[in-house]
């Protein structure tokens, strides 16, 4: 008997096309899995009726030959994407009850392709976090546990609901967004694949903004080919987003190739950190060997400003966030707290104090400070100059290589609460993912091995602008070499 929730997205598509099972059966099995997995707290809102209606529509479309690319595929949507008629909160108390009257471009494309939305996935508040612990709806618990331990682990962040749901087999794939690593790091923590495409590949229209020059939507799924197919459906030019790139979207899944013959893969020496986790380092070396076996030429490269990427990010991202989050003022949507007899300004201040969580306030404060008169040049302008140097580093690297191979995160998943008291320790999770974000480059994490505690570790492939196909191909080659089949043991 087929266990529907264990199928890859491609196997689901093939089974549906062959009418081995119906979309109703497939989606129904996932609706049941979602209900049974509430201890993970992966979903903020479950939408079984929407999922089943989409399944019925998919069955009809499959019967009459009009089925889209994702007809009947059960997916989860990060609660940062506005969904018409379904509460959208960015996991913030300030947006509780907000029900968009419009659909984000990315979700509209997925639904047009026939995808069935199981619900809205939990995340760090406004996508600010690396552990999904800053959500106003409570933390997401990873489906993974260390060997011989019952201690709850984080699923990574900010797309922690997405990573947990895909890893726990609650959905075939999920949308994520990545500002500094929010797709790749949670993918690595939960043993799944995740791709952040080139900045501008997927429309940002209808995605709740965090840092507009960094935010980019992407896919999280259990295989590279699954990511490729879903990205095809999501990506493409959108006149409603002025930073959207007007470039054709290739048929990524069909073109997947596991050969790296003729490809030069760069190994950036600055990514070798002092005191690096030995399991992470060993996996990286293994990945290099796999790439060589697949035909790639391995090249030593230098990205000299790697060490400055995180502090640069923690100026640019909070600055843009402080500006973007100015809109939450209790006037047009979301929470309002109006003290009796208070002024308009009292209302703004009370609303924002009550509606934002601690990490969001901290970043708004940093952002407001670095943009304020007298500090702008020293912080924001300086950071945008260093950011230009970081982007130049990559441009120089592309003279001698086609792709870069690095670890995704410096460690495996950590325990719930382990890093909440130290913001900088939390920020360091993104040390390997932030540079590609600052340069707008496509990057993917694939599950490649387990650490001695039995927890997943990821490898990251970074590519040239718009070379998602190259990134997917290299990831596909490494995925085949790694043969990663580990899955969390169900405890929920």
């Amino acid at each position, binding site marked *: 008997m087929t266990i529907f929730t264990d199928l890859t997205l491609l196997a689901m598509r093939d089974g549906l096309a062959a009418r081995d099972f119906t979309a109703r059966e497939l989606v129904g099995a996932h609706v049941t899995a979602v209900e049974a997995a509430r201890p993970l707290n992966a979903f903020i809102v479950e939408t079984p009726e929407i999922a089943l209606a989409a399944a019925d529509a998919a069955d009809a479309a499959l019967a009459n030959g009009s089925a889209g690319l994702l007809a009947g595929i059960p997916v989860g949507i990060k609660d940062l994407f506005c969904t018409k008629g379904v509460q959208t909160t960015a996991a913030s108390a300030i947006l509780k*009850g*907000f*029900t968009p*009257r*419009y659909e984000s471009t990315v979700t509209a494309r997925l639904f047009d392709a026939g995808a069935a939305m199981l619900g809205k996935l939990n995340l760090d508040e406004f996508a600010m976090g690396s552990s999904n612990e800053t959500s106003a709806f409570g933390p997401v618990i990873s489906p993974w546990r260390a060997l011989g331990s019952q201690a709850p682990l984080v699923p990574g962040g900010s797309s922690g609901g997405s990573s947990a749901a895909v890893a726990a087999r609650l959905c075939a794939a999920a949308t994520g967004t990545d500002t500094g690593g929010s797709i790749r790091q949670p993918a690595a923590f939960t043993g799944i694949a995740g791709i952040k495409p080139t*900045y*501008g590949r997927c429309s940002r229209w209808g995605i709740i903004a965090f840092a507009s*020059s960094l935010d980019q939507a992407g896919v999280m799924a259990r295989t590279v080919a699954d990511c490729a197919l879903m990205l095809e459906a999501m990506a493409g030019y959108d*006149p409603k987003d*002025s*930073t959207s*790139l*007007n470039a054709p979207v290739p048929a990524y899944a069909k073109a997947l190739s596991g050969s790296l013959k003729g490809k030069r893969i760069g190994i950036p020496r600055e990514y070798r950190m002092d005191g690096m986790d030995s399991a992470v380092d060993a996996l990286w070396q293994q990945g290099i060997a796999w790439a060589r076996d697949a035909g790639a030429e391995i090249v030593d490269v230098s990205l000299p400003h790697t060490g*400055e990427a995180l*502090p*640069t990010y*923690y*100026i640019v991202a909070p600055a843009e966030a*402080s500006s973007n989050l*100015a809109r939450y*003022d*209790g*006037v*047009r*949507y*979301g929470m*309002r707290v*109006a003290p009796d007899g*208070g*002024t*308009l*300004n009292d*209302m*703004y*201040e009370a609303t*924002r*104090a009550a509606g934002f969580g601690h990490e969001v306030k*901290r970043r*708004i*404060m*940093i952002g*407001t*400070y670095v943009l*304020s008169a007298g*500090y702008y040049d*020293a*912080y924001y302008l300086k*950071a*945008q*100059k*260093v*950011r*230009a*140097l970081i*982007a130049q580093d990559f441009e120089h690297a592309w003279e001698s290589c086609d792709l870069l191979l690095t670890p995704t995160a410096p460690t495996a998943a950590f325990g719930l609460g382990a890093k909440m008291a130290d*913001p*900088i320790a939390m920020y360091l999770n993104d040390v390997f993912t932030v540079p590609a974000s600052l*340069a*707008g480059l496509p990057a993917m994490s694939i599950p490649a091995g387990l650490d001695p505690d039995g927890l997943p570790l990821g490898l990251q492939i970074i590519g040239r*602008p718009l070379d998602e196909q190259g990134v997917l191909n290299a990831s596909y080659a490494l995925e085949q070499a790694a043969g990663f089949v580990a899955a969390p043991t169900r405890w929920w």
Partner: protein
Amino acid sequence: MAVDHEMVARVAGLARLKLAPADVAPLADELNKILGWIDQLQAVETGNIQPMTAVIPNSRPWREDEVTDGGIQDDVLANAPEAAHGFFAVPKVIE
């Protein structure tokens, strides 16, 4: 560039965040730790470097200057905490 309590209060005012007096000191400590860490950027030589303004070079698309949206007052007001007479309602701002 250490942030003192007065600066924390000033920035909170700019950001329209009401701070309880007890929150100021711990927030000042947190911000100083983070800003102290960020300060390492000052050591980077950026003499002739132009600040980044576009992540991926992209020319601004042109379009016809025509009305493509509108007439959706109900949608715009649907999520307002308070709306009256077709407008957003706020506490009185004119004496």
